[in-house]
């Protein structure tokens, strides 16, 4: 009941006209960047981070949450009509959705994706509402040692387990942690890795890294590999009103997708790839018409889309209750909290109830806005898809420049941006994931802080991480996640 009251107060915050406008702006912008290939929520929120100096926290987070949810809706439109998944989580949607579109059933695919996203988003937000206070109860018992071990577990899962290569994922994670270490060490006042440059004393801004990797690196890669201009946009065909059979085949898939996506997203491992693939596999197994899979089966769109959205809501659970981001977007939202001087963690719900519950309430409202924006107005987004590549990437670089130059009006930031863009190009070319860099950069310094706290309390004796039972269990899990897949492969041989 307590939670319910808190949620109602959240609605009172979210429903003010100004905050409704922020939510609408976020949802619209989010759908647009989700639709546009090459842009994503992480990049967009990074570019908008400077507004944290001007706008009050609740409004900013309502905007960011709208972008976060909106990009999930928009991404499915692109993968259905263009067969170029904007992000790895929508690969599966492209699989069946694009086939449906080619068969003249684009509208039905878009409809089941949007309604499925709505159903999953809403159920998962309910899950978030009631799970968050429970996790907080549990997390309040955590000491620095437990926190550090939990972060180690998250590091391992986001970099080594979820990507295509553990080695490359971990290399990116360490690179990110290194980027986070640059600047003055807050505990001792020692500058680290500043190479004698005054500009680096304050550390590298996460905007520069996120924009460098996601905008500049991606643009360089696409230009160098000629990956543009070859994709045809499939015209919208068919009726948006799904047939009775479509509904019958979709609704169970939506629910199953939700119940696969939310728990996996809510685990401190995160990631949307695993639940979407899992949902696809489950739907294929359970379908009465498995022969349709690979040729445009509607369950193959409905389930993974629901799983994708549900896991996006799930990611907010560790983020809001533990301060533990498990996706690049969540990591950048965490840095937005930091720029307000707010530390996400178990105390967030107590100290900032207006902010957290206002944010959660706005997620419910955002979902309603998004289904309106994405179903009746889908034609608008199809037009956005037709922006020619030269103009799209020119525009992306202009916004990348203004977002970075606005930090301190210094060309050094721009130089750094392009250098990181160059690294991003190589990473993209040799298949290194970008998310671990961002997560390492944001979470690395926090992990170091907890590590030193734990060590200081225990007079510099590192055994504390193994003698506290919970910490030991978490570290053991991390080790198992790191070595498990490798050992399994060895045994199978």
């Amino acid at each position: 009941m307590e939670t319910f009251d808190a949620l109602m107060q959240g609605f009172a915050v979210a429903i003010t006209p100004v905050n409704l406008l922020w939510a609408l702006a976020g949802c619209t912008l989010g759908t647009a960047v989700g639709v546009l290939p090459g842009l994503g929520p992480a990049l967009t929120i990074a570019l908008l981070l400077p507004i944290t100096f001007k706008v009050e926290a609740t409004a900013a987070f309502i905007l960011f949450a709208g972008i976060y949810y909106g990009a999930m809706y928009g991404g499915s439109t692109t993968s259905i009509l263009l067969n170029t998944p904007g992000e790895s989580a929508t690969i599966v949607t492209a699989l069946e959705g694009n086939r449906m579109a080619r068969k003249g059933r684009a509208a039905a695919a878009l409809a089941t994706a949007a309604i499925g996203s709505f159903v999953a988003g809403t159920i998962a937000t309910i899950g978030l509402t009631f799970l968050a206070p429970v996790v907080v109860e549990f997390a309040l018992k955590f000491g620095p040692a437990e926190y550090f071990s939990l972060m180690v577990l998250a590091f391992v899962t986001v970099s080594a387990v979820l990507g295509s290569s553990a080695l490359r994922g971990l290399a990116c994670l360490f690179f990110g942690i290194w980027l986070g270490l640059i600047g003055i060490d807050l505990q001792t006042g020692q500058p680290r890795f500043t190479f004698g440059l005054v500009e680096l004393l304050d550390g590298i801004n996460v905007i520069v890294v996120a924009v460098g990797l996601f905008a500049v690196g991606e643009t360089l890669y696409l230009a160098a590999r000629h990956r543009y201009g070859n994709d045809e946009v499939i015209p919208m065909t068919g009726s948006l009103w799904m047939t009775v059979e479509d509904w019958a085949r979709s609704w169970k898939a939506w629910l199953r997708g939700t119940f696969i996506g939310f728990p996996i997203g809510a685990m401190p491992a995160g990631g949307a790839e695993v639940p979407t693939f899992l949902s696809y596999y489950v739907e294929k197994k359970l379908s009465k018409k498995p022969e349709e899979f690979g040729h445009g089966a509607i369950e193959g769109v409905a389930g993974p889309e629901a799983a994708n959205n549900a896991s996006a809501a799930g990611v907010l659970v560790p983020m809001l209750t533990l301060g533990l981001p498990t996706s690049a977007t969540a990591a950048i939202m965490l840095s937005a909290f930091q720029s307000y001087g707010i530390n996400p963690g178990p105390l967030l719900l107590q100290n900032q109830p207006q902010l957290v519950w206002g944010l959660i309430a706005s997620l419910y409202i955002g979902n309603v806005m998004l289904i309106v924006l994405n179903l009746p107005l889908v034609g608008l987004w199809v037009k956005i898809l037709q922006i020619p590549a030269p103009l799209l990437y020119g525009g992306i670089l202009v916004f990348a420049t203004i977002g970075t130059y606005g930090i301190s009006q210094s060309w050094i930031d721009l130089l750094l941006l392009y250098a990181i863009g160059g690294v991003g190009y190589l990473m993209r070319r040799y298949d290194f994931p970008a998310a671990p860099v961002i997560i390492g950069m944001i979470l690395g310094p926090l992990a170091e802080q907890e590590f030193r706290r734990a060590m200081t309390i225990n007079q510099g004796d590192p055994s504390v991480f193994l003698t506290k039972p919970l910490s030991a269990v978490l570290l053991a899990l991390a080790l198992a996640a790191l070595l498990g897949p490798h050992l399994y492969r060895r045994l199978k041989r």
Partner: protein
Amino acid sequence: MNLRIPGSSKNRGPALVGTGVVVFALVVLWQTTQIPVSPLYSKVSPTIFPYMVAGGLLLLGLALIAQAWRGEWGETDAYSDDQPTDRRSLGWLALGLILNVALIDALGFVIASTLLFVCTARAFGSLNWKRDLGIAVALALIAYLGFAKLLGISIGAGVLEGIL
């Protein structure tokens, strides 16, 4: 698994990247030794994490080189040598980026990013530079007004910015 002749041209890129990671790890290591440590903090020193990062990167770099040497580098869609790198496109992009960095302090955001936009459009195969120029100016102005006036973020002074 595809077995390839060690050292063949396909493995060269990955091997170079692995070597780059090792070199980077050594730089991190060297820089870590340069961090002065006060004896007061010697037990929980500010160099513990840097040493962990350097050590981790060193091991990962060596493992990556070994993987590249054995030709095990997971060949993905992102990495295929059938398509040669388009140096011309990269050249146009690099030109745009360099012009932008070089001119933004002197001429301001609007002019510098207009040039960046036109060069980028050229890199992506657009030959209609008059149209690009028009769109570039409009977009740069919208971006400038949006950030500077609407969000109140200072985007610096410049030739055109002074008039607005």
